[in-house]
């Protein structure tokens, strides 16, 4: 029976006087609680988003707490023109999803048209910001990738616990997202020339880069797409399976050919 004793010296190393709440700045000019909230996003499993002018793809890796359990859903549709994938504390993410769905529904009811995406992000970031400036609140512990389509084409946005939101051509959040981002950085300039199929393949290759040893199944991968004429749709497990063959091969990985170099 090994007793784990908490050493006062060990405790001192990690303790900080400036991280008790969101109301305190550290001498380096950081609000440590918000930084810690950003860390929570990195603990979540990866979400990847990428888009061309007319198509967009969200890919998420789902975790299962136990082999007897199912996998945690992290990709949701918000409205016909908008979908999201989260990384981090999924309970916070589901609440965010509920809020976004409600806002879109209200807008639809009043205006009979879809909610402009950047406006929705503004509302969400305002909500996130309030939680970063109170003694009795904590920031959201979840980062969100929003993929949506409006009159000017397809857009990918990200919203983080520090209440900042940015638009991206391609991005990845969550555990080991840096490897996926590196892959996307190499190929993103070509995405406008890609078909939807090619975008999905790029996204899955980025996923493979982040989790080289994992076996991808239709249970643990989510793919969401939005297109020129289609609304946001999460692919059924049977529709996902054909794509997984390319990233599950034991053999030497074929590098993705960019459209420019193909015949």
């Amino acid at each position, binding site marked *: 029976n090994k007793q784990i004793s908490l050493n006062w010296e060990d405790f001192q190393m990690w303790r900080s006087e400036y991280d008790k709440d969101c109301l305190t700045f550290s001498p380096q000019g950081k609000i440590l609680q918000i930084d810690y909230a950003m860390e929570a996003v990195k603990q979540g499993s990866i979400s990847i988003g990428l888009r061309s002018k007319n198509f967009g793809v969200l890919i998420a890796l789902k975790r299962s707490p136990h082999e007897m359990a199912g996998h945690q859903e992290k990709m949701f549709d918000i409205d016909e023109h908008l979908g999201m994938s989260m990384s981090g504390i999924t309970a916070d993410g589901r609440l965010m999803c509920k809020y976004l769905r409600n806002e879109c529904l209200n807008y639809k009811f009043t*205006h*009979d*048209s879809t909610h402009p995406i*950047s*406006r929705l992000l*503004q509302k969400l970031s305002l909500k996130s910001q309030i939680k970063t400036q109170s003694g009795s609140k904590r920031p959201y512990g979840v980062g969100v990738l929003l993929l949506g389509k409006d009159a000017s084409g397809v857009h990918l946005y990200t919203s983080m616990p520090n209440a900042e939101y940015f638009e991206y051509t391609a991005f990845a959040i969550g555990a080991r997202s840096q490897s996926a981002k590196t892959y996307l950085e190499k190929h993103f300039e070509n995405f406008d020339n890609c078909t939807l199929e090619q975008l999905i393949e790029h996204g899955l290759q980025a996923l493979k880069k982040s989790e080289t040893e994992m076996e991808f199944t239709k249970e643990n991968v989510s793919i969401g797409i939005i297109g020129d004429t289609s609304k946001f749709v999460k692919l059924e497990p049977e529709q996902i399976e054909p794509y997984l063959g390319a990233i599950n091969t034991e053999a030497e990985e074929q590098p993705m050919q960019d459209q420019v170099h193909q015949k």
Partner: protein
Amino acid sequence: KKKRTRMEGKNTHTTTPIVTGTSVLGLKFKDGVMLACDTQACYGRMTRYKNFSRIAKISDNTAIASSGDMSDFQQIVKSLTEKRIQDETREDLTSYLTPSDYCSYLSTLSYYWRMKVNPLLNSTLFAGFQENKPFLGMVDPYGTKLENNFFATGMSMYFCNVLLTEKWRADMTKQEAKELLESCLRVLFYRDCLATDKIQICTVTTEGVNIEEPYTISSDWDLSFFKKWTTEH
């Protein structure tokens, strides 16, 4: 019609209009949409205000015109202008609201007030340009929202729908559209007690909203019908 008052607090619900404007007409033509109405606001049967504009510009691509209670019209203009300002003053400095968004918004408001038995006593026409296509919509006091190629509200429903149905074509020029609307307003001047011959036209095209100065339309009283009516009957 009796004015309904309730003794609960200071609420007084009105189901009858006080200062009113008569009909509004609108139609789509080849390059855009045109609204027309007269510039008169009546107090019951009395011609009270002879220079009252019943057309308003809401945004660069939307204009409205209302018949019915004019204080409600002014309130509608305020609400829609507020909506436009909120839309334009966001950090992304982009305007997202289209004419059909404004139309849907007013229909939701109108329905809301109607369900409180305190209706917005207006039939409002929305003229606009969105996605390179002309838009013409109408909201009635019940909150119904309709879209069509031409509209006639108020008294003109009875007199002018026939004229518009017969003469309207999708490829009308601006001049033809103006003449058709003038002929409708002329009929109204002859037949509607509350109508006048000083009219105002508003055109919405890709170039934006243009509300012209009011002018008097011609009318012919030199008809034997009118002469005989007064001398022989």
